[in-house]
């Protein structure tokens, strides 16, 4: 009997194809939108995460706070501290100091203002940053305070535009001090990272920077790379603990780690996706109201049919089941079409963005389940109304 009632419900949907399609539309769009938004969101999120991971692995960076006086900075943030951090933290593979200042590059009469980064060979490794010509700074450059410079790709283009740069001599001026530097390498294109645009900078030994370009001895940033075998959080805790012990106040320094930024990014995009998904879910609700509307019209139109069925022995629950199943079919089929639509939309958008497509099965399950619940919820009232009709009144309904 149950099968027969299902067949009745499907038959009446089939008879009124256009109306069936129109009443499903709300659910189709709702389910499609929820799936598309969540899937596009997670595709984009995965893409961003992957991009961040290519910037370098598990880096923690520490800088002095703004509220630290320059005297304190000079005393506290030094090369020695960086060395000590490396020696005392087993979860840290290497520590890379950085000192930056604005300066002017001059070559054959042409000048460009840029950022001069004083650092150590570790800078290239932690940023997964490779030279395309020559080499990056090495230990000898540091120890001998050599006047060697490595150019970011934009800087190399600026002065040499494809010509051989390695071996050329370039002048760097800062605070009215001028020094001649030998170009020993040109770096690959890397683009914007957290530290800034690596391509637009030039790199010199930090020892040279401190001795010749700086007025003070303090360094700006200490990068620590977590050891490969240590959990990211553990390396971060060790570094944090070191500086807390050393400075005695967590307000005196700021500490960031890549996994922290990934986490924040993750949270932001998850929140955003959920919010947009929630808005899309409202359209599901509207779709449900559409179904209820059509079902109420249908019950009124088919009052006589209901009367006939009751006269022939249909119980309330038979009528209820028939109309409820009609509503459920509307939302179910609408949901299935919506899944297809959401998949298509995700396919096109991720294709356009060049991301790998991630259709979240949870989103599909959630949207479809929600559609079914809405079908039952909004189908219930019309079905109850149909089941409660008086057989005599319905039989005489014109």
């Amino acid at each position, binding site marked *: 009997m149950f099968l027969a009632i299902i067949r009745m419900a499907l038959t009446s949907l089939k008879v009124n194809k256009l109306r069936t399609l129109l009443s499903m539309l709300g659910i189709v769009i709702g389910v499609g939108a929820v799936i598309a938004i969540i899937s596009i969101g997670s595709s984009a999120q995965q893409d961003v995460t992957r991009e961040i991971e290519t910037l370098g692995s598990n880096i923690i960076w520490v800088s002095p706070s703004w509220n630290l006086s320059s005297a304190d900075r000079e005393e506290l943030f030094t090369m020695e501290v960086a060395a000590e951090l490396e020696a005392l933290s087993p979860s840290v593979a290497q520590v890379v100091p950085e000192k930056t200042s604005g300066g002017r590059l001059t070559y054959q009469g042409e000048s460009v203002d840029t950022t001069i980064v004083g650092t150590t060979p570790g800078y290239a490794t932690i940023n997964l940053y490779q030279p395309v010509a020559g080499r990056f700074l090495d230990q000898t450059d540091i120890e001998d305070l050599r006047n060697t410079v490595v150019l970011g790709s934009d800087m190399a283009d600026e002065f040499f535009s494809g010509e051989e740069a390695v071996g050329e001599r370039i002048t760097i001026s800062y605070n009215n001090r001028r020094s001649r530097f030998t170009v020993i390498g040109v770096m690959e294109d890397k683009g914007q990272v957290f530290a800034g645009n690596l391509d637009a900078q030039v790199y010199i030994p930090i020892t040279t920077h401190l001795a010749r370009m700086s007025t003070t001895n303090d360094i700006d940033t200490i990068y620590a790379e977590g050891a490969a075998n240590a959990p990211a959080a553990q390396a971060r805790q060790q570094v944090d603990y070191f500086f807390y012990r050393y400075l005695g106040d967590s307000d005196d320094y700021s500490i960031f780690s890549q996994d922290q930024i990934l986490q924040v990014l993750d949270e932001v995009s998850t929140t955003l996706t959920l919010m947009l998904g929630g808005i899309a879910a409202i359209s599901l609700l509207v779709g449900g109201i559409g179904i209820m509307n059509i079902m109420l019209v249908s019950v009124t139109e088919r009052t006589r049919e209901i009367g*006939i069925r009751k006269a022939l022995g249909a*119980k*309330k629950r038979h009528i209820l089941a028939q109309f409820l199943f009609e509503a459920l079919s509307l939302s179910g089929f609408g949901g299935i079409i919506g899944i297809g639509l959401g998949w298509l939309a995700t396919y096109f958008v991720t294709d356009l963005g060049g991301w790998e497509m991630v259709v979240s099965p949870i989103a599909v399950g959630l949207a479809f389940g929600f559609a079914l619940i809405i079908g039952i919820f909004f189908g219930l009232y019309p079905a109850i109304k149909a089941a409660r009709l008086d057989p005599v009144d319905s039989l005489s309904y014109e």
Partner: protein
Amino acid sequence: MIVVEDLRKVYKNGEIEVEALKGVSFTIEDGEFVSIMGPSGSGKSTMMHVLGCLHQATSGKYFLDGEDIGTLNDNQLAIIRNEKVGFIFQQFNLLARSSALRNVALPLVYRGMKRSQRQEKSRIMLEKVGLGHRLDHWPNELSGGQKQRVAIARALVNDPSLLLADEPTGNLDTKTGKDIMKIFLELHDQGHTVVLVTHEPHIAEYAERIIHLRDGEIEKDEQINTSKAEALRQD
């Protein structure tokens, strides 16, 4: 067997109460062919709704095959309608979007019969009323007389104790109406209990007994001579 004792039915329409049946009593034996006749407003429609278990009486007793209908709830009434009552309406009341076969099979669906069995039984019923060649036709492809035959097949499919016909010839021309009345006579001859509700004397006269209703009361309950029925039988 139908036993009706002091049956009353009061309809409330807002503040106004209308007493459609004012204490009606009669007995109909198994196999009888009875017409219930009266002008509009006489209470004959109400009588049919109560006899067909579509409505409950306000007071009084109604026994169908010994069962006290007045004590039944909606679900039990639905079962009685399904198993014991076969309705034939003036408007045919077929489902417009179902084939003749499916229309006839509908009471069997609510009885819980298997599909193959339903179809077999419905086919036999339609053949009995001479529509074996119209099984897959929709109602709008059938003539009025054919529609009423489908409705009769549907009424008979559950082998009910009571065939309840409400102006069954009202929408048919005289010739077709006679054909339908002939079917009722045949059913009566086969032992079915037939109750015919009508306001037309010439239709009521095919029965063997007429209960006249007026203003909710029995005006006259008479056995009539069956010459008219005999004439139709011979026709």
